[in-house]
């Protein structure tokens, strides 16, 4: 069978049938075309992010001021180190994956299993890191207020220029206001959790504390956020209508509302890819261990799941650039 096929393909044209013109198996090609379509999906997301960013080019949040946490370094301003670490973890798990594929070509079962396991561990560490990143993002660090027009006002100290946490200056005004739930008000309506402080408490605390200034969303020509003078700050704070702590899908303390939405959506979609990659890797790992591919005579399945895994890494490289660097 093989011999006749080879003879035919020598005489006929490449696309005349009877051979594999792209020199690639069906499964691998389909994985490639899935990757192409998925790459277009991700570029759609990132291009939409770019759209919003160019639309609000002079008021977009600065990534270095948002993502500045590092494990065990509380209160230390460490921009980007953590995501750089995550990038290294993912690139390294890509390397162990490609080593597994290479071992598969040489039919070394134990080596394939070992490298697959390392890849899975790398993917799990990355997922954990992303969960930690989300936790910090959702909890927030300083808190802010929102004006009637949807502008976020943050607070800085006039002496040091550093951000000030709202808990450190908010006045205490006792009130009976509590969260409206179905069981304590009208049964068909409810509201989400109330912020720790009311707007009045923030306003009063701000006016009592002469050291405080308001930091707006707007960027100056050097790309820094504009800090208002004390008088402007007091008139601006009077317009605030909402206290924002951390981030959710409606508002966030970092600035433009779309920023948090895109963060959740793009890193979430990528994280979901990593999760499914880890699960598929696990299935393939168990198949390697019980010898499925040894019996089949080739480790092409490792190669296919490897393509998907590298793609996930590839997407992260772009997310890293557009969310954290640019």
């Amino acid at each position, binding site marked *: 069978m093989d011999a006749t096929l080879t003879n035919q393909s020598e005489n006929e044209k490449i696309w005349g049938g009877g051979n594999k*013109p*792209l*020199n*690639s198996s069906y499964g691998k*090609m389909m994985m*490639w075309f899935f990757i*192409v379509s998925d*790459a*277009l999906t991700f*570029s*759609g997301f990132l*291009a*939409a992010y*770019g*759209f*919003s*960013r*160019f*639309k*609000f*080019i*002079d008021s977009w949040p600065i990534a270095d001021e948002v993502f500045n946490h590092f494990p065990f370094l509380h209160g230390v301003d460490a*921009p*980007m*180190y953590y995501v*750089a670490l995550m*990038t*290294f973890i993912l*690139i*390294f798990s*890509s*390397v162990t994956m*490609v*080593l597994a*594929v*290479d071992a598969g*070509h*040489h*039919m070394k079962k134990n080596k394939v299993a070992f490298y697959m396991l390392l890849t899975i561990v790398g993917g799990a560490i990355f997922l954990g890191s992303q969960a930690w990143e989300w936790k910090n993002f959702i909890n927030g660090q300083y808190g802010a207020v929102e004006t*009637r*027009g949807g*502008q976020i006002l943050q607070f800085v100290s006039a002496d040091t220029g550093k951000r000030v946490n709202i808990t450190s200056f908010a006045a205490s005004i006792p009130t009976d206001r509590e969260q409206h739930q179905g069981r304590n008000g009208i049964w068909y309506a409810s509201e989400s959790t109330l912020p720790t402080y009311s707007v009045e408490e923030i306003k009063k605390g701000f006016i009592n504390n002469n050291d405080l200034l308001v930091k707006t969303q707007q960027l100056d020509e*050097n*790309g820094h956020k504009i800090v208002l003078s004390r008088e402007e700050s007091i008139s601006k704070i009077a317009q605030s209508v909402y206290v924002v702590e951390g981030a959710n899908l409606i508002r966030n303390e970092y600035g433009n509302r779309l920023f948090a939405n895109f963060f959740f959506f793009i890193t979430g979609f990528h994280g979901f890819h990593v999760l499914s990659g880890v699960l598929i890797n696990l299935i393939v790992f168990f198949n390697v261990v019980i010898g499925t591919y040894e019996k089949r*005579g*080739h*480790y092409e399945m490792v*190669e296919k799941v*490897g*393509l998907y895994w*590298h793609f996930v*890494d*590839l997407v992260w*490289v*772009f997310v*890293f*650039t557009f969310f*954290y*660097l*640019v």
Partner: protein
Amino acid sequence: MAVEHKLSIFRGRLTFASNTQKIWGVLIFLSIVTVVEVALGIFKPTILMSYFLGMKLLNWIFIILTIVKAYYIAWDFMHLRDETRSLTSSIVLPLVILIPYLVFILLLEADYIYNVMTDGFVSWNF
């Protein structure tokens, strides 16, 4: 199932003895590029803050370095270097044509909206 690998990178300037060595070599290269990116992102040299085609020079460098990284991940980790030319083209060409097109129309439109909101007769700071 022995598979042929092309073991040269950088247009043949660097040739590795085996596929495993090439993988580690590419890892080192990718790590260097990432370290350069992070260092530039932390120090932000003032020379690179000038604008070129609507974006900071620094951002252009980041994007170019990202595409370089993507190239080596696709070509060496995903073995595109070892595939036939027709398969490589059918994967890369749609992306290379469609993505810049999408990015171009969206960013141009976004810049237009930005101009309308800043120069137009509409107050957005209420």
